[in-house]
C-alpha cells in the first residue's frame, strides 16, 4: 500500500513539474505558436521571474537582497510584471528581426541575463543562489501541502489555457495567425503588425516569468544553473513542438509528456546492470534524444496538431478555411 502511495507522490511531482513547464510552453505558444516569434531566450525571462519571486519573499539573509517578505501571490504578480517589462524592452529592440535571427538574439540576451544574476552577487548571492524560498501551502501537513501546491499549479495552467483559448478564437488571435502566415497581407489589411507582435511577446514573457516564480517556490532554491539553456529553453521548445505548436492543449500535453519522458527514463536506466552503473545516465540522455527524433518523424505536426478556429459564421461560404499546413512558417 505504502508503495502505491509513493507512486502517487511521484505522480504529483510529475504533474507539478509538468504543470510549471506547461506555463512556460503556453507562454512560448503565444509567441511562437500563434505569432511565429522564435524566442530562444525563454531561460532569461524564466530567470527574471524566479529571482524576483525569491528576492521578494525570502526572509532577510546577509548574502543577498531580501527581507521584504512579500506575500507569495503578490510576489508572483511582481515576477510576471517584471518579466513583462524585460520582455517589452527586448521586444522593443528585437521584434523586427525574423525567425532565426530573433532566436539567436534572444539566446544571447538570455545568456547575458544569466551572467548578470551570476555576477551581481550582492543581490543574488552569485553562483550559490538563493535558498529557503517560501512555497505556497508548505505549512499544511503532508501530503496536503503537496496536493495543494499541485492544485494551485494546475489551476494556474487551466486559467491560462482558458484565457489563451479565448484570445485565440477572438479577433486578436486571428490577427496573430494572419501575421504568422503572411505578414505583408496582414499589414495590407491595416493591422499594425509590429504592435501585435510586441503584445504577443510581452504576454508570453510574463507567462515565462510566472513559470519561473512557480519553479522558485517548488525547488525552494534558485541559482544560475536553474536557468541553464538546455533545460530552461530548449526543453521547452521540444515540449511545444512535440505536443503540437499553436495548439494550447498540445502545449500542455507536450509539457506533461516530455517532462515524464525526461524524468521517468531514469527509472529504467538506473536498472541497467552494474557494469553500466554510471554510464546509465548517458544512456538516458541518449534515449531522450531518440524519443524526440521518433516523435518528430512520426508526428511532425506534434501530437495534437493545430486546429484553426472555425471561420466566423458571417464569413462562412465566402472562402474556404486556410489549409492547415504550418509549413509556411520559417
Amino acid at each position, binding site marked *: 500500500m505504502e508503495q502505491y502511495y509513493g507512486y502517487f507522490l511521484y505522480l504529483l511531482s510529475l504533474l507539478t*513539474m509538468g504543470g510549471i513547464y506547461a506555463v512556460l510552453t503556453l507562454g512560448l505558444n503565444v509567441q511562437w505558436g500563434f505569432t511565429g516569434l522564435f524566442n530562444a531566450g525563454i531561460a532569461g525571462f524564466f530567470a527574471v521571474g524566479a529571482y524576483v519571486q525569491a528576492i521578494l519573499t525570502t526572509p532577510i539573509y546577509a548574502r543577498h537582497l531580501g527581507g521584504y517578505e512579500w506575500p507569495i501571490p503578490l510576489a508572483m504578480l511582481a515576477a510576471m510584471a517584471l518579466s513583462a517589462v524585460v520582455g517589452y524592452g527586448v521586444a522593443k529592440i528585437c521584434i523586427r528581426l525574423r525567425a532565426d535571427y530573433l532566436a539567436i538574439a534572444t539566446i544571447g540576451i538570455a545568456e547575458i541575463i544569466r551572467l548578470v544574476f551570476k555576477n551581481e552577487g550582492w543581490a543574488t548571492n552569485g553562483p550559490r543562489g538563493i535558498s529557503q524560498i517560501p512555497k505556497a501551502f508548505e505549512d499544511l501537513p503532508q501530503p496536503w501541502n503537496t496536493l495543494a501546491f499541485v492544485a494551485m499549479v494546475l489551476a494556474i495552467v487551466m486559467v491560462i489555457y482558458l484565457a489563451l483559448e479565448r484570445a485565440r478564437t477572438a479577433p486578436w488571435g486571428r490577427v496573430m495567425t494572419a501575421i504568422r502566415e503572411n505578414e505583408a497581407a496582414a499589414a495590407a489589411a491595416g493591422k499594425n503588425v509590429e504592435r501585435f507582435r510586441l503584445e504577443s511577446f510581452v504576454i508570453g514573457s510574463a507567462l515565462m516569468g510566472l513559470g519561473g516564480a512557480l*519553479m522558485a517556490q517548488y525547488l525552494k532554491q534558485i541559482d544560475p544553473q536553474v536557468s*541553464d539553456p538546455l533545460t530552461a529553453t530548449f526543453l521547452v521548445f521540444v515540449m511545444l513542438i512535440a505536443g503540437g505548436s499553436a495548439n494550447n492543449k498540445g502545449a500542455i500535453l507536450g509539457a506533461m509528456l516530455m517532462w515524464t519522458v525526461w524524468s521517468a527514463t531514469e527509472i529504467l536506466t538506473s536498472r541497467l546492470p552494474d557494469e553500466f552503473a554510471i554510464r546509465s545516465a548517458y544512456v538516458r540522455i541518449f534515449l531522450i534524444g531518440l524519443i524526440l527524433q521518433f*516523435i518528430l518523424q512520426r508526428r511532425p505536426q506534434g501530437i495534437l496538431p493545430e486546429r484553426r478556429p472555425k471561420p466566423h459564421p458571417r464569413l462562412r461560404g465566402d472562402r474556404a478555411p486556410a489549409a492547415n499546413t504550418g509549413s509556411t512558417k520559417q
Partner: protein
Amino acid sequence: MKHLITAAALAALAATPAMAGEIRVGSVAGVTGPIAELVAPIVAGRNLAAAHINANGGLLDGDTLVLVLADSQCDPKAGVDAGNKVVNVEQVVAIVGASCSGATNGMVQSVTIPAGIPSVSDSATAPSITDLDDNNLVFRTAPSDAYQGAALAKLAWEAGYRKLAVTYANDDYNAGIAEVFVANFEGLGGKVTANQVHEPNKASYRAEITTLSGGGAEALALFAYYGGSGITIIRNALETGAFGKFMAADGMFDVSVIEQIGAENLRGNLMITQSASDPSNTSYQLFAEAYKSTGMDPGAPYAAHGYDATFLIALAIEQAGAADPALIAAALPEVANAPGEIIRPGEWEKAKALIAAGKAVNYEGASGSVDFDAAGDVPGFYSVNTINAEGKFEMRFLR
C-alpha cells in the same frame, strides 16, 4: 508512441517493489552535467562501500544494500526530480548525496526533509546547508568550505607568501572557498594584490592572467575545477610567464593536472589542499588499498567522503535495527561519533557483530573522523599535495 511509454511505465512499475532481502538507499549524484568528471570517482567510492557491506554479511538479516543511482546534474531542478524518484518510486530509506550544493539544497528542502528521509551528502560544501531547518535529517561528510579556505590561507602564510593574486571560477563551490581564503589571508596580514572572478569553460585565460599578474604577486591562488578552467589557467600562466607558483583547493586535485601540464613544470610550484584524512592514518590506508580495485585514484576529491557517507548509512541501518528512515536519522550521529569501539573502512563484519552485541560503535572514516556536530556537519581535515620526484602527488596532512 503511447504504447511505448505505457510499456515503459509498466516495466518500471513492475520492476520497482523492493524485493525481499533488499534495502534500498538512494545514490544521488551529478553524473552528467558540469562536473561529471569529478563525480565518477565519488560514485565509485559509494559503490565500493556497498560492495564491502554486501560481501561481508549484508545488512540486518543478510539483506543486500542496493544503491539506486539518480542524476542530479548539479541543477536544483534535476536534484529535486532525482530526490522525488528515489524517495517515492524507489522508496529508499536514506540518501547518499546530492553532489552540488545547489542541487542538494533543492533536493533536501523540497523533497527529503518533508518526506522525513535522512540524507548524507559527500560533496556539498555550501555554508547555507548548515543554516537549514532540517529536523536533523541533513548530514554531510564533506566539510563546509569555511574550513578549507582558512586551511589554505594558513598554509600560504606559513609557506612564506605575503602577496598573492586570487582568481576563482564563478560557480557555487569555488566562489565560496575563495571568499573565505581572501578574508583569512588578509586576516593573517597577507596582501591580496588582485582578486578576480573568471567565467569557467573558456578556451583561453591569457588576458585575465596577465591582468592579474600586474600587482607583483608572488603566486596565484587558484580556485577552479581542473576541467572547467584550472588546467587551462595554469598552462596559460606558465606559458606566458605571468605566474610560476600556484596554490589551489581540491577542485584542482586530479592526476590529469600532472598529466596535462607535466610534473617537471609543477614540481615545487604547486600546492593543492584537499579535504582528506591523514594519509598515515589506518582508516585512509584501508580505504586507499581497497579503492585501487576501481582503477581510479583513491585521492580523488570526495571519493573517500562518498565511501564514508555510504558506510555510515549502512551502520545507521544496522544500529537502528530496521530499514526505517526516522530511526536511521537518529542512529547516524550515534554510529559516527564517540563513544564506541572504533570501526574503520571495510570493517563491516566487526561492526555488525558489535552492534548485534549491543555495543556502541564509532566510525573513523577514510575522510577523517566524521564526527557530526549538531548541524550534521563534520570538522574539516585537510592535507596538502605537492609533486614528488616520481611525478606523483605526495600528500602531507595539515595539523
